[in-house]
């Protein structure tokens, strides 16, 4: 079940990435949220930067990309499969319907900045696809996500080693350390 959602979110993320390169499809592209009222300086600790897409009404924290928080406001009349949250694994039917709720995908880079897809599932079908925009000015909002993914940097940023705390890379020898970026950072703070 979870895998289906993950797969779906991954695909949707892919779709968004695809759209981001096609300006003709602005209705779904991340730029569509330019009209949103999301304050630029929202460094709120909650990390829910989904202020722009208030249409869905689900205020799920966008930071928790994994466990899609189920906050579906739509009164799910059919409480057929509601009771057992975990038992569904045994059946293993691949075509099981989606559980109602709001699911948030992992952030992905586009040329508009990092975006994140949110889908709303009601009665087993997707009823809404939203692309809440990250406030790109707020590095903090990206950082607060414990599951942050590597953000690709442009070539111009390569030299800005002073902004890094640590460098992850293939193991260098103790001689190679002297030429390494980590060495420069250590030196600068020694």
């Amino acid at each position, binding site marked *: 079940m979870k895998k289906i959602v993950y797969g779906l979110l991954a695909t949707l993320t892919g779709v968004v990435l695809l759209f981001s390169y096609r300006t003709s499809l602005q209705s779904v592209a991340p730029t569509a949220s330019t009209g949103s009222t999301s304050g630029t300086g929202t460094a709120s600790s909650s990390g829910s930067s989904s202020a722009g897409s208030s249409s869905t009404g689900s205020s799920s924290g966008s930071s928790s990309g994994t466990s899609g928080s189920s906050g579906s406001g739509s009164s799910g009349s059919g409480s057929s499969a509601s009771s057992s949250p975990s038992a569904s694994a045994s059946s293993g039917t691949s075509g099981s319907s989606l559980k109602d709720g709001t699911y948030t995908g992992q952030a992905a880079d586009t040329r508009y900045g990092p975006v994140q897809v949110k889908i709303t599932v009601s009665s087993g079908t997707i009823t809404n696809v939203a692309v809440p925009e990250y406030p*790109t000015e707020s590095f903090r909002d990206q*950082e607060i996500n414990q599951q942050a993914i590597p953000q690709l940097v442009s070539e111009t940023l390569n030299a800005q080693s002073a902004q890094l705390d640590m460098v*992850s890379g*293939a*193991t260098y020898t103790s001689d190679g*350390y002297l030429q390494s970026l980590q060495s420069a950072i250590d030196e600068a703070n020694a």
Partner: protein
Amino acid sequence: MSGVGMSTHDATRRQVARSVRTATLMGTVASIHLIGSVDEDLVDAAADDCFGELADVERVFSPFLQESDISRMRRGELALEDADTRVSAVHRACETALDATDGLFDAWHAGWFDPTGYVKGWATEIAAHRSLAPLLGVPGVEAVGIGVGGDMQLFTSPGSDWVWRVGIADPAHPGGVVATLAVRDGAVATSGTAERGSHIVDPRAVDSVAPSKARSTPTAGATVVADRLEAADLWATTAVIAGFDDLGWIAQPGPLSQLRSGMLVASDGRVRRWARGVELTPSNRSWLSELPGA
């Protein structure tokens, strides 16, 4: 993107004191960074403990030291049962890793037990938890972390707004960074084909049944972010062995698979990124027609 975003945060960061200690061990250099204001003697003591434990692990496990337990076992002079108790623990862990990675991570591929590719991450995680993490309880300490030759375990005090900014080295351009990453608590490990010390060999390359699979695009660098460095390091190494075209391992269940996210950089510069078992990629246009309202 981060160039703009970091500006406001940097203003506060620069005012934070930082203590750095380095030591040469395990054939590379280890760096401990402590963020915050604290008695330097306390930093020295913790760093000495941490470095000391790593140096002792090296003494027992290094295949480059003639008198290490691993070298003596290789020469048949020492039985596993008689070796340091940590050797049998690592032996068991490598058996688990062999199984968890479907044979890709093979500490016996050379014909003898060489856990070099496992020990650094495992030992650093343990030493960091034992010697560094307790510092978070000291007033004034916001964060502390250790990096050993490009693999790191980082901690941040719950009450601090500190965030570690990690650069991922560009395998094609020494000194350059191909990506950045924000981590409060957790581990980051990167392996590369040119990595020193760990013998990265795809066992499938000698498997005549699947020669084509072993011929996938070489991975110049594989980065894995996880809660624990043992798992991050293990899977970063495994990712290099698996090759750029194989990302199926990111969704594998298991105790050693609590992975957060990561990235592959191919020898030709292409990049694949993933998070929580899902690859982030532009693909599969067929979904367009099935989306409501599309």
